[in-house]
């Protein structure tokens, strides 16, 4: 299963490798070793994804990889559709592949999945009233923290620098807590 997919990306990689190793000048051996190691890493990353599919061209395959990495498997919910081995992930990958052959855009494919499996399948949640807390929550917390710090500082400057340290530390600690 893995072998099949490794075939296509690595074929390209091997070609590049040949170019480097044969046509290479006396480039440092270390560099070559690093380069080969990187290529192998890339091979492993590619090999994660699944059965061989008859892609039209390399661009379509890349697009498929990219799209399936942005979508979440509904079954094993911490995996992308690209990584997951669940039967439903396999079915959905096939479906996406077929829709690509029909010339559907990435956006249409996402809409198709959202209509069936809800926005849950999108790893990148769209900005909607339901997700504004998700998007802006961290900013709110940051602003809240800044407010606490500001209040603490003002309080301290009002009481004056002459005040003893223990009374000063209280509010500042609160600021840290946030």
């Amino acid at each position: 299963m893995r072998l099949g997919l490794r075939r296509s990306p690595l074929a390209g990689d091997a070609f590049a490798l040949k170019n480097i190793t044969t046509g290479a000048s006396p480039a440092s051996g270390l560099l070559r070793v690093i380069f080969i190691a990187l290529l192998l890493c890339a091979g492993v990353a590619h090999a994660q994804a699944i059965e061989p599919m008859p892609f039209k061209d390399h661009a379509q395959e890349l697009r498929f990889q990219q799209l399936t990495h942005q979508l979440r498997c509904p079954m094993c919910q911490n995996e992308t559709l690209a990584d997951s081995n669940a039967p439903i992930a396999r079915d959905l990958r096939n479906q996406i592949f077929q829709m690509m052959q029909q010339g559907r855009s990435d956006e249409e494919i996402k809409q198709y999945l959202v209509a069936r499996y809800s926005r849950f399948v999108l790893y990148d949640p769209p900005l909607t009233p339901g997700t504004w807390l998700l998007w802006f929550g961290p900013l709110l917390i940051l602003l809240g923290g800044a407010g606490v710090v500001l209040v603490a500082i003002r309080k301290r400057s009002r009481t004056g620098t002459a005040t003893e340290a223990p009374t000063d530390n209280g509010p500042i600690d609160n600021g840290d807590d946030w």
Partner: protein
Amino acid sequence: MSRLLPFIGFMLLVGLFGFGIWWNTQHDQNAIPTPLLDKPAPAFNLPKLYEPTQMVSKVDLLGKPYLLNVFASWCIECGVEHPVLTAEGPTLGVQLVGYNYKDAPDDAKGWLAKHGNPYDLLIADEPGRTAIDFGVYGAPESFLIDAKGVIRYKHIGPLTPDVMAKELKPAIAAMLKEAP
């Protein structure tokens, strides 16, 4: 007052985490809300499990409400659900339609022979293509579909006596009240 502030902050966090724990005990964390609720069920055309040459479509089932129960012989939790469905299915007041999902027909028949067949009608989706339209991602899942073909309720995971009493039966009652 400022002395109490850390304590108040702490209690707020305790409250938040406590709520999180409570919330997670109330919900199946793996259940994905279906966008299909209160929408027409997707069109389908699937063979019967026992007579694969005969097809059943959505239109064939219009006019009578039914509970579409997605199951498979490979599904462990279906074995948990099966006795409940067998015992309570006939009392529900709706047709029971078995949706055999990604299963070899012989495995499914063997499983039903062993555990009993509570279904009024059995359809098979071996490739699992139609199931995508229903937003099915595993088994068991159950859809309550009314006489007009609208999905009124969905449950992901086994139907337990608790789920039956608290969710499914009230949903059926509400549906029948609206259109007897």
